[in-house]
Structure formats: structure tokens, C-alpha cells
């Protein structure tokens, strides 16, 4: 039984299929880098895997439990997008503690301290989010997604807006999470959507390309040739990237 599973996932909006018949499986300590042009359906797929959207057909599963209608499955997921999902009138600490409590984390205060430390924003803990720069907000947003130690991490272009320091902190955190991360049950499972092929391949154990709602290509990291991958990718999506 895999940790994260998409079983013929399909999602239509009106007559248009944003995600069409996607099947994939990931186990612990695996990271899938998902590439594709704008409008390929990557964000929709991630939202389906996070339980934010209901599939038109097919199922998304975490540890064998279908995500739809199961809040405990949802609790295993951490989701990061370029929307910060923060309340800008509240402080950094208040935002993270709220998230911790919403997920039922045992010692919310300590978990907050820990994750703020990991993302190197502890010294700004009492600052209101609206007073932070975009890059710092992104770091706080990532901290929010990690505070409950999710087994599955879904990242939608998380490097957007991060400076070199922030990007390094993120890569380090993600690497660590992938190796030992999660809730102490072994490494976290991740799906990373990014436009930057090198950044994606650096963290990935698997790579896939999405276009027109379908997964065109899916393989293990060691099976592909990283030097030619960018060219193959461009050819595959026909210059629509």
C-alpha cells in the first residue's frame, strides 16, 4: 500500500477536463518533481491530492484511505502554494500556532517554535505578517504547512519569491523531511511542482511531465538523463512551455 496514490483521477470544470485520468503511486521518502506548461493541470492535480477539490472520477488516497470525506487523511497533508494562506493582521507566531491547533498538534507552542526555527524566521515571530517582505512571508507560509509534520507534502511552485537564503533553507528542510521527516514513520512523500527543471530534479526521486490534463511521462530519477531532460521536456510539450 503506497503512501500517496492517484487512481485514474479526473476533474472537469464545466465541459473542460483540467485533469484527465491520472494514475500514480508514491511511497515514503520519495519526491516527485512535476513539470508542465501553464494550464497543464498541475495545480488542479495538487488540489485534488490535498482534498481541496472533489474528483469528477477516480480517487486520491493517502495510506489507502480515500481523501474525500475523510478528515484524518487530510490531516496527513501539507500544502504550499504561492498564495500564503496567512492572516496578515496576525503575527507569525499566531498564524503558525493556529495552524498547529487546527491540526490537533499536541504541544502547539513547542511545535511552532521548532518549525519557526527550522525555517529561520524565529526572530520575526512577533511581527505581523503584513509587515514582512514577500520572501519572508513565503517562509512563514512554508512553516505553516510543516508545523503538523505531514506525511505528504504538496508544493506548488514553492520557490517563487524566495531569495537565495530562503531557497537554500527550503531545499535543506525538504531534503531533511524527505529523508527522515514525517511523523517519525520514515521519510515524507512529496510532489513538487516547479518550472525550474534543475531545482526540481535536485530534490526528486521521480519526475513527471503533465500537459493538457494528462501525465505524459513518469519515471524514476535514475532512469532519466538530466542533461537532455530539459530538451526532451520542451519537445514533449511542443514549445507550449
Amino acid at each position, binding site marked *: 500500500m503506497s503512501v500517496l496514490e492517484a487512481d485514474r483521477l479526473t476533474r*472537469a*470544470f*464545466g*465541459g*473542460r*477536463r483540467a485533469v*484527465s485520468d491520472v494514475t*500514480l*503511486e508514491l511511497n515514503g521518502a520519495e519526491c516527485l518533481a512535476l513539470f508542465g506548461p501553464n494550464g497543464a493541470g498541475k495545480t488542479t492535480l495538487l488540489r485534488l491530492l490535498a482534498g481541496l477539490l472533489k474528483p469528477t472520477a477516480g480517487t486520491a488516497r493517502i495510506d489507502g484511505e480515500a481523501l474525500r470525506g475523510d478528515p484524518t487523511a487530510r490531516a496527513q497533508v501539507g500544502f504550499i502554494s504561492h498564495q500564503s494562506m496567512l492572516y496578515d493582521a496576525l503575527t507569525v507566531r499566531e498564524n503558525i500556532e493556529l495552524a498547529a491547533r487546527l491540526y490537533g498538534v499536541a504541544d502547539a507552542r513547542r511545535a511552532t517554535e521548532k518549525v519557526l526555527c527550522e525555517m529561520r524566521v524565529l526572530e520575526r515571530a512577533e511581527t505581523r505578517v503584513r509587515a514582512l517582505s514577500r520572501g519572508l512571508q513565503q517562509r512563514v507560509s512554508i512553516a505553516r504547512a510543516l508545523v503538523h509534520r505531514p506525511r505528504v507534502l504538496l508544493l506548488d511552485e514553492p520557490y517563487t519569491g524566495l531569495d537565495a537564503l530562503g531557497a537554500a533553507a527550503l531545499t535543506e528542510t525538504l531534503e531533511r523531511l524527505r529523508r527522515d521527516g514525517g511523523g517519525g514513520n520514515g521519510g515524507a512523500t512529496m510532489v513538487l511542482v516547479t518550472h525550474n527543471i534543475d531545482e526540481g530534479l535536485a530534490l526528486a526521486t*521521480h519526475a513527471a511531465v503533465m*500537459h*493538457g*490534463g*494528462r*501525465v*505524459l*511521462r*513518469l*519515471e*524514476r530519477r535514475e*532512469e532519466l538523463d538530466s542533461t537532455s531532460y530539459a530538451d526532451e521536456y520542451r519537445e514533449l510539450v511542443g514549445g507550449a512551455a
Partner: protein
Amino acid sequence: MTSLSVAHQPRSNAAAPATVEQRPLFGWLFALAVVCTVAAYARAIYFTPIEALQGASQKIYYVHVSAAMSAYLALGILAVLSIVYLWIRDERADRLAESAGEVGLLFLTVVLTSGPLWGKPIWGTWWTWDARLTLTLFLWFLTAGYLVMRGAIEDTAMRARYSAVLGILAALLIPFIHLSVYMFNTLHPKPILLKPDRPSMPNEMLVTFFAMWVAFTLLCLALIRARYHYAVDRDALRALESGGGDA
């Protein structure tokens, strides 16, 4: 995990539109309804005796009451379809609810205009806060709100869901409005000069009432049907226009 490769994309995922039937918007049911309505009107105007106390203007009452019945029918359909939509999520239920809403608004407007037209010669005022008129007024606001809300939402699925929720809540509200108006009327008697209770009706009037009621019911159903066909065509056209350009 194995590697997959897919050679090419299917052209479009939108369901191919079925051939649109060439059917007229207003069919046999509408023709029948119009015939019945004309006949009922004729009967009311020429072949029904004039009521002693109220005079000729009492005849508006046939239209007023029948329109109210049709309005309740249309809105009842809307309420039921709202529940049906949330249950089976079929967009046809939503389209039918939309059609019933518009037709309901039409009949409610007839009630609200015929009421004062009847009331002025009889009661001496254009408006009284009597039970039926007040309830009709609030139904009018609710239905208008329903249609305005529909107009403000682009996404078809969201529009259908929101409309269904509003339809059900509005149906829940009706007993409360009814009760409020009832309490208001019984506890605050109005000084009116002439209080026309419904007089015991001779048979000819009852027949006319019945004829008008049947005619308006047919008219209501025919209009809903026509409006529904329009909605089907409109949505098919929209699907064609937006479904064409996607890969």
C-alpha cells in the same frame, strides 16, 4: 513505477454536442394554454354575472387568484428542484429551477399589479398589508434576489449549488413570513371601510374561477417548458463556444 509515454493528445475532452433538435420554443402545450386562457377570459368578461357588491372590477379577482396559484406552483417546483439538485447534482434540475423561478416572478408580478388594481375601487387604497399581498411581496423579493444572484455568478456549478441553497432556505422562510403577517394582521386590525370577505359564490362564478385556474396552470407549465428549452439551447451554445478552444 514504470515509465509511460503517450504518443498524442486526444483533440478535445468536451462532450460532443448532440444535434440540436429543431423544435419551436413554444409548442403545443403553449398553444393549448393560450387557447384556454383566452376562453377563460372571455367567459369571465362576458359570460359571468357581475358581482353585486363590488361591481365589474371584481372580475380582476379571477386573474389575481389564479396568478397567485400559478406563482405558488412555479415556486413550489423551484423549491423541490433545489432539493433534487443538491441530491443528484444534475444540471437539468438546476435549469428547470431557473425556468420556474423566472416564470414564478412573472406571475408574482401579475398578482402584485392586479391586487392594487382590484383594491383601489374596492378598498379605497392601492395597497393593504393583507396576508396574501404581503406574502406575495416577499416572495417577489426572494425570487428577484434568486435571479439576481444567479446573474452574478459565472461558474455554472457554483451557480447551481448556491441557487439550490437559496431555494431551500427561502422555502423554509415562507412559514415564518406567513406567521409574521398573520400575527401582524390579527393583532393590528386595520380601519378599512369595506371589508370584502369572499362571498359565497354562485356556480357560474365558481366555474369561471376553475376555468381561469386551469388556464393559468397550463400557461405556467407551458412557459416553464419553453423557458427550459431556451435554457438548454443557451447552455449548449455556451458549451460549444467555450469547449472549442481547449486541448
